[in-house]
């Protein structure tokens, strides 16, 4: 890890950790909670959608599972208020493990079949959420017990929970990049058949990426549910969430460490700003879709890779011109 990298991380997380101490208005914290939420989601979607090249279109289903898990377990009481947070790792790991068989079936053949399975999964999850009334409350939704946090600092535990999840999400992303898992995933993304042919443990790494990715999505969903206090099926299992994380990852740069986070920090505040002006999720749908298509056509690689590519080209040009200058000098002697 480079010194610059460590510095970046310390400033970023340190700054965010200290922020609540300095900020007064509640809406800022609220905005940040959603920003961190999407940053964590996008960052983990990146494992399977970015590093592995398998775009999952059903992540919202796992988000919803996490949300409903918290809602169901903590419907009546949350004790001192911290119990749900401690439940999160359990939910995350459970979802990750349960997703393994799904992942194995879905990733058996190709990336587009994978997308088919995940999209269908999303729909099934939504149907279940609406129809398993005894468990999920159906269209009525489900409430969660209100924690006895002090009013003045009510958002703080949620804020720090999201921050920790982002740290975890980015931490795993970083770990993948630095280990052979990342190397294997990159090979799978570039040429899966060839990866098989040089002995890369393809299925294993795909499953690891998928399981980690959905485990985090579930945990984030859990915090979201707890924060909101009441969840409805159409919002807990909402395709808008999927397209949000996909869009942010693409905008910032797939298969990069900071790309998804950058994407989230740009789009979530933008979305919230527009929310006051236009309202209604139908507009989001159209706006997200339109922005996504525009990005696809204009900035297909995303912000970060485009910048690093430009820098790389500039460095190369400098190298070449330095070499030419040296040659000229030699020749003129």
């Amino acid at each position, binding site marked *: 890890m480079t010194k610059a990298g460590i510095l970046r991380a310390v400033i970023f997380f340190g700054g965010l950790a200290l922020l609540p101490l300095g900020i007064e208005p509640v809406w800022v914290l609220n905005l940040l909670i959603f920003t961190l939420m999407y940053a964590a989601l996008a960052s983990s979607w990146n494992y399977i959608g970015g590093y592995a090249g398998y775009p999952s279109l059903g992540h919202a289903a796992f988000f919803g599972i996490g949300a409903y898990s918290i809602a169901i377990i903590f419907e009546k009481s949350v004790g001192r208020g911290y119990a749900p947070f401690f439940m999160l790792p359990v939910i995350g790991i459970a979802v990750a493990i349960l997703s393994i068989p799904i992942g194995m079936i879905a990733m*058996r053949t190709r990336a587009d*079949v994978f*997308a088919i*399975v995940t999209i*269908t999964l999303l*729909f099934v999850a939504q149907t279940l959420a609406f129809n398993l009334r005894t468990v999920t409350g159906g269209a009525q939704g489900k409430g969660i017990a209100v924690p006895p946090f002090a009013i003045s600092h009510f958002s703080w535990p949620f804020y720090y929970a999201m921050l920790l999840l982002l740290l975890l999400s980015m931490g795993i992303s970083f770990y993948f990049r630095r280990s052979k898992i990342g190397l294997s995933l990159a090979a799978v993304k570039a040429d899966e058949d060839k990866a098989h042919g040089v002995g890369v443990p393809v299925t294993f790494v795909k499953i690891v990426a998928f399981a980690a990715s959905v485990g985090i999505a579930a945990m984030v969903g859990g915090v979201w549910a707890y924060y909101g206090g009441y969840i409805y099926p159409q919002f807990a299992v909402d395709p808008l969430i999927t397209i949000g994380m996909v869009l942010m990852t693409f905008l910032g740069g797939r298969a990069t460490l900071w790309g998804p986070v950058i994407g989230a920090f740009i789009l979530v505040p933008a979305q919230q700003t527009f929310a006051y002006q236009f309202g209604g999720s*139908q507009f989001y749908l159209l706006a*997200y879709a339109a922005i996504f298509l525009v990005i696809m056509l204009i900035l297909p690689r995303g912000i970060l890779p485009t910048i690093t590519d430009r820098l790389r080209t500039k460095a190369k040009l400098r190298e070449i011109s330095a070499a030419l200058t040296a040659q000229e000098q030699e020749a003129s002697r």
Partner: protein
Amino acid sequence: MHSLIQAIILGALTGGVYALMASGQTLIFGIMKVINLAQGAFVILASYLTFSLFQMTGIDPFVLILITTPVMFVLGAATQWFLLRPLRQDDMAELSLLVTFAVALGLEGLLAIIYKTTYRTIQPGYENHSWTIRGYQVNEVRFYAFFLSLAMLAALYLLLQKTKFGRAVRATVQNPMSAQLLGVNSKMVASFGFGLGVATAAAAGSVFGLISPFNPGSHYDLISRLLTIVVLGGLGSIGGSVIAALIMGVGSALVSALASPIWSDFTFFIVLLLVLLLRPRGLFGARVRGSL
């Protein structure tokens, strides 16, 4: 027993409609190796178009197909031309999914803004009529829809087998590079093919609007079913998708009758998982593996 056979009849008729939608999707996949995740949304768009036209003019929804089909064709061709063609070849498989997904959601958003989220139906007056044949109810609309589907599938078949364009399409499906070398303008084929695939959604949309209440969000249900059907039939086989549509139509109707309508949605997902587990290439599909 009676209700079982009733369910089978209903299922078969519905399957015919699905077959029409699925064949368009399969055609698109065959030509471009692109899974059009917006196919369901295009059907719903067609339903809304038919709905509005019917409201404004009172012309029978089946007749309106003549108007909506060219409109959907143009929309499809334009989608391919402006949104898919610019994608780089190596990214195409991955990105086309996301692009068509975005188109689907964009259409949903657009329709929701224009029409709000209330459920609509197209009601020309005869939508609830059914005949009773030997004690079994046969819904009039579904009956016409089934034969309409057959007719259009036949037309599609003739188009592909007998016309120059059809030959170009089949050549491109089998071997894009050779086709190009032989003078087939693959860009045009791609655009036209996509347009054709989406055009089938026009007829399906008219019919769908008659038999089922719909709102902008209905495309999810549709696309999940369509995807299961094309996977079951085998990606790339139009005949396969027709048969798979009938199987799924009957199958889910049976589940609906025997268990409950809620589980009939599930049937699709279960079938999808089973196919992928046991026979990934579906009933009639080509070997499913990456390139060599």
